[in-house]
């Protein structure tokens, strides 16, 4: 197996609600090799989203080690995690989360702008837009796009900075079957063609089946993978 691009050891996260400590992750350990397509499955409250947020640098772990592409997230402050989100992580959310005032192209360009990249989009990325079948829809604002198109724009946005990992949180949760399958096909295609490392959180077994591996979570622990 190749050197893991994600290495998680005894990861714990405890939220404090009032005077009560609520453990969301209770010692998760996981290796994800570069180029892997891993599905993390589990019921609501199992800790999938917390793991997603920690891997994406959106929140800090309480204890444990999380190394993403050589960077130990537990050691990163706010600035470091901001830099991580900018350069190493691409997010795809269940609700697409496109900026409603910008066009599809604008949504892609803003991610590129924030990461500090300049100049026109690379040819390779333009090819990717064709692969995602959104190259003819770039001038439209999100409200003029279907759910499937919006999610594909979100995938393009997540990939524009060539992230080390693509984190997808229930990417098909808001889509009908046809669009859901199209998005899953795209993710698998990206993984196979470009070698993009993908972590997909889902509670849908059919979606999880698209991944190379499935890690099942329950009560803040990984049961098997």
């Amino acid at each position, binding site marked *: 197996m190749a050197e893991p691009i994600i290495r998680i050891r005894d990861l714990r996260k405890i939220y404090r609600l009032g005077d009560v400590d609520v453990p969301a992750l209770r010692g998760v350990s996981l290796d994800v090799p570069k180029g892997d397509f891993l599905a993390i499955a589990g019921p609501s409250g199992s800790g999938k989203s917390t793991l997603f*947020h920690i891997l*994406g640098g*959106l*929140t800090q772990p309480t204890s444990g080690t999380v190394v993403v592409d050589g960077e130990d997230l537990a050691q990163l402050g*706010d*600035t470091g995690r*901001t*830099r*991580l*989100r*900018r*350069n190493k992580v691409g*997010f795809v*959310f269940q609700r697409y*989360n*496109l*900026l*409603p*005032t*910008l066009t599809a192209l*604008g949504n892609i*360009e*803003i*991610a*590129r*702008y*924030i*990461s500090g990249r300049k100049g026109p989009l690379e040819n390779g990325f333009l090819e990717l837009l064709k692969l995602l079948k959104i190259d003819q829809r770039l001038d439209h604002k999100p409200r003029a796009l279907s759910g499937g198109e919006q999610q594909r724009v979100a995938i393009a*946005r997540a990939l524009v900075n060539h992230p080390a990992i693509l984190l997808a949180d229930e990417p098909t949760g808001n889509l009908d079957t046809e669009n859901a399958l199209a998005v899953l096909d795209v993710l698998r295609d990206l993984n196979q063609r470009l070698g993009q490392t993908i972590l997909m959180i889902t509670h849908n077994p059919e979606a999880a089946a698209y991944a190379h591996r499935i890690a099942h979570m329950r009560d803040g622990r990984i049961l098997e993978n």
Partner: protein
Amino acid sequence: MINRLVFENLRHRKLRTCLTALSIGFQVTMILTIVGLSRGMLQDSANRARGVGADIWIKSPDASIMSLSSGTMDQRLLDYYARQPHVTHVAGSLVALIGGVSTVSGIDYDQFTALSGPFHFIEGGPFRGPNDALIDTWYAEQNKTHVGGSVKMLNREWRVCGIVQQGKLSRLFVPLATLQDATNNHGKVTQAVLKLDDHRNTKAVIAALRTEQPDYKIFSIEEFLSQFAPENLPMLRAFINVITGLSIIVGFLVVSLTMYTTVLERTREIGILKALGAAPFDIMGMLARETLVLALAGWIAGILLTFGANWAINHFVRASLQSVITPDWWPRACAIALVASLLGAIYPGLRAARQDAIEALSYE
């Protein structure tokens, strides 16, 4: 790219953007109109003083330049001034406040016209009785008054005997003796104006008069006109400062409320930007740019509104108030709008910058 986002965000909420810019615009208009009014009224007073055609202007020790105080001098001084070398004509006038900043001047018709030249009558003619009044064209226009009509002031009814071209001393003239009687200023005048045989003798005459009357305010016409500037009126300057301060507070509150609403409304979008790697500074910068655009749009709107206010004042109430456009104050108004707006954006901006990305992304 951020500029495009800023522009699209503002365009997305057109009504709110317009209302905010308009509110900032009113703030700018408030300042520019007050300054324009101050200058306009001073300029108008100066023009009317110049219109008298006198070389020297004399006021009593306790009188104000703007003729709004009750400082008076003995009318017999007019004879004394008439006896001075080089003085060819002397006229005295009594000024009485009739409401707001409007005044009426009591004049000895023959004495005044001998110094100043004849009035240019548009309608009617000189005083024929003690309760006659002359009004100028602006006053007649604003009050829709004609010869034969009446003007009520100082608890008396005055008959309008003539309408004269505006631009000379006052908007309303009544016989000096009647005004002295009405204001209980028998034998008193507010000011004396002197005409010399040669304007070049002004300095010498003033020097001689100042020796005799060191406490009196004795000015050449040039000195007198130069007094009609806001800088020479501390009260006016303080008033303008108060209005400017109020404008800053209003602008601060308007922008603060708008940006606070904006931040609340865009919580999710702020979360998205953070997920994409935007730093708190980037979020604040974006809001600051929006604020700058709003402030600049408000500033332009304010200038346009000022033109409207200026036109309305000079069109409908120019006898009472006069306004001028003051382009030299535009940069200052711009700075005030920017400062007030940026101050107003600080708290919402900090709130947005500190927004937790996960909470923001789950915001409904």
